[in-house]
């Protein structure tokens, strides 16, 4: 009896060991395949990365810091970030790119000689964990500022805590509170305003009906309110749909959307790239892509990878809202971004794209703010500096970026529209402000005093 049990235990141990070894070995091999495939599958980004990296290699990354070539050795300035990382959703590219920027700065003089020490906490969309991560950063890691947060629920869970502790967060927002509270200012537009942009473009093309379909994650009502206001203003009927993700039956979703939109209607999607991809692929397999006037998508669809996967049938058929300046733009800042990504951004898996662009922008803003501090680096001084950022040209957005002392922040409220063309996303429309018909946009512009600047 004992011998058999020993044998079974032996068997289990062998299996465990075998699996670990296989896993480790395969990870070494397979991840190189999957990494190169994220390179080759996303052919154009990787190709453009390598070619512009080659070009950018001539771009001196040392211009990210104030003293090129001089390593910073003073007392570190601690900053922190919280990002979602779970099967199916990973935003770690954003803080990882911010870290790449900070590494560059640290190697080139730091912030007035002080290096930046960056703590990244990951979470799996569990409110307890998200709250705990915030406390870890503030009370154990003693961070002076929060830069680079990207999480489905973080803003909702922690906005009260940041207000209490006096942190003015620079983030890439998703939850409503990222855009509706005093202590969070985002570099991106977030699902609501990005969807606004996509719907706005569709309405401008003269569609007679809008179907807005989004994933059923927290905040659907908040997100839906924007497109609803825009459609109502133009007297266009709008159908609001939600889908449980992950989607197991994309066919019925695609048929429903197309049926509801009609031949002169638009279907606007707000999903993560994998979900948007399977809906659009299902529509194509069913032969439905031409049954509506146009398809639209919020910013997550803005990847060359999606353009490649979708194929030529979607050229000029799918219009994606782009919150950030297209990476193909030729500008010194864009070259610097690609150079830093190539040199310091090994941990950034997605390569060139909106995620790493956001990380770059947030880090850029933070460093710019930190460099303006003259006295000691404390929680008060760092966050006062963040709040004081005004009209900063990031080189990555349509507008200059301002934090400011307002009760809500939507500093990025103008967008591009891009469309797939032969495997790449190309610009269909340049910088266009989001319509102030969305009440939150109107409220922000009034608070920031920018209402008059927008036609």
């Amino acid at each position, binding site marked *: 009896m004992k011998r058999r049990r020993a044998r079974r*235990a032996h068997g289990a141990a062998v299996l465990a060991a075998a699996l670990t070894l296989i896993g480790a070995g395969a990870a070494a091999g397979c991840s190189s395949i999957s990494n190169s495939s994220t390179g080759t599958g996303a052919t154009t980004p990787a190709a453009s990365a390598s070619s512009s990296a080659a070009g950018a290699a001539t771009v001196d990354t040392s211009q990210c810091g104030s003293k090129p070539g001089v390593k910073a050795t003073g007392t570190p300035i601690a900053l922190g970030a919280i990002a979602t990382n779970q099967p199916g959703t990973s935003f770690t590219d954003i803080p990882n790119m911010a870290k790449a920027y900070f590494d560059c700065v640290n190697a080139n003089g730091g912030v007035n000689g002080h290096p930046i020490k960056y703590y990244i906490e990951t979470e799996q969309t569990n409110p307890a964990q998200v709250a705990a991560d915030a406390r870890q950063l503030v009370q154990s890691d003693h961070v002076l500022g929060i830069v680079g947060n990207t999480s489905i629920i973080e803003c909702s869970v922690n906005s009260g805590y940041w207000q209490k502790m006096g942190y003015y967060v620079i983030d890439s927002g998703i939850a409503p509170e990222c855009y509706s509270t005093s202590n969070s200012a985002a570099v991106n537009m977030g699902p609501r305003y990005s969807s606004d942009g996509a719907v706005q473009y569709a309405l401008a093309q003269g569609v007679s009906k809008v179907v807005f379909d989004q994933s059923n994650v927290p905040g659907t009502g*908040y997100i839906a309110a924007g497109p609803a206001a825009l459609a109502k203003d133009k007297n266009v009927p709008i159908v609001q749909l939600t889908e449980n993700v992950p989607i197991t039956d994309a066919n019925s979703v695609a048929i429903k959307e197309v049926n509801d939109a009609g031949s002169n209607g638009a279907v606007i999607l707000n999903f993560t790239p994998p979900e948007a991809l399977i809906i659009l692929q299902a529509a194509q397999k069913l032969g439905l892509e031409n049954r509506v006037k146009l398809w639209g998508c919020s910013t997550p669809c803005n990847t060359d990878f999606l353009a490649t996967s979708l194929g030529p049938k979607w050229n000029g058929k799918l219009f994606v809202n782009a919150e950030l300046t297209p990476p193909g733009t030729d500008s010194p800042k864009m070259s610097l971004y690609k150079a830093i990504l190539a040199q310091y951004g090994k941990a950034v898996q997605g390569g060139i794209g909106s995620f790493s662009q956001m990380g770059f922008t947030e880090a850029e803003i933070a460093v710019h703010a930190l460099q303006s501090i003259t006295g000691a680096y404390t929680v008060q001084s760092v966050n006062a500096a963040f709040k004081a950022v005004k009209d900063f040209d990031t080189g990555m957005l349509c507008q200059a970026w301002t934090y400011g002392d307002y009760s809500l922040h939507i500093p990025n409220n103008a967008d591009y529209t891009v469309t797939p063309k032969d495997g790449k996303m190309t610009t269909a429309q340049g910088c266009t402000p989001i319509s102030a018909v969305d009440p939150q946009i109107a409220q922000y512009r009034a608070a920031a005093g920018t209402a008059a600047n927008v036609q």
Partner: protein
Amino acid sequence: MRRLHGLRLSDLTRPRILVTTFLLLFVLLVLPQLMSLYYVDTMTQVAVYSMVALGLGVLVGRVGLVSLGQAAVLAIGAWVAARLLFATSQPYLLVLLEAGLATMAVGIIIGLPALRLRGLYLALITLMLAGGITVVLATVNFPNGGHGFLGYDGSLLHIPPIRRPSFAASDPAYFRFAVIIAIAMFGLVLAHIKTRPGRAWAAIRQSEPAALAAGINTWLYKLWAFALASFITGVAGGVLAGAIHYLYSINFPTQDSITLLAVVLMGGAYSLWGAVVAGLLYQFLPSLLNNWGVSADWLTILFGIGVLQVLTTAPAGLADQVPRDLARLGRRLRRGSNKKAATTAPAPERVP
């Protein structure tokens, strides 16, 4: 002398009571002082999920019913508690009781028809019901301060947090509150085990036909177990609501029920300590790994290996296995002694 299913009824040795009491006092009084807030929050979750594991342990370990739907039951408890906390200003303990009772009612309604099934069918039907409840929750969402029966307002710009009791507002205080509630639930289960339900369950576990022949109303006692497990899980849901302040349907996916079964099996479905181990496995380990930057996937793999190991070699789980291994080690160390080692009866044969 036969040990009866992991709990010595005839001689609860004094050292064991002393150790347990000391441990509990330490956890209540000293631990919050020692831990950072990150770990205080984590240990609150451990307390919550120890209760869930306790409920599942009663079903799996004591009665031999496998439920693959406890995450959904937890969600129901949390939903009821959140709704009451937003809609009324009742004291927190009353809300917990109501959440437990409401969940118990749901458990009984489900148990009434479901208990006609046995074994694999019962496990699968609980999985089906959990799947259904998950979809409903995804559509109706958790209450967030809105009006109407569902209490959900989708367009809110600021979601209000779920309140905590006035005497346990801070994180360390709420941790103590959660531990005290957990102790109460463990006490409730202990009371059941030492009285008639416990004996009936043991008999049913051993052999249901024999129990029937002995005149035990097996259906009633199985339903009782279902009701008890649902009540405890409902209360746990109420504690969870106050702990995390914000509830989202994406936090209660169907696969969580599967992972819960895995950790309960690993921790040990029989002994009460097994439920605590399960809670630690389910919440403390992931938190620790997250802090160290290790991917949570390694834990998923570990849980899978753990399930296989438990089912093939250590049916009573870690809580039974580790003390036994330690005891065996102790015996080997005392090899020369004349003292007879306490004979341990083999683990019960019918293992889920």
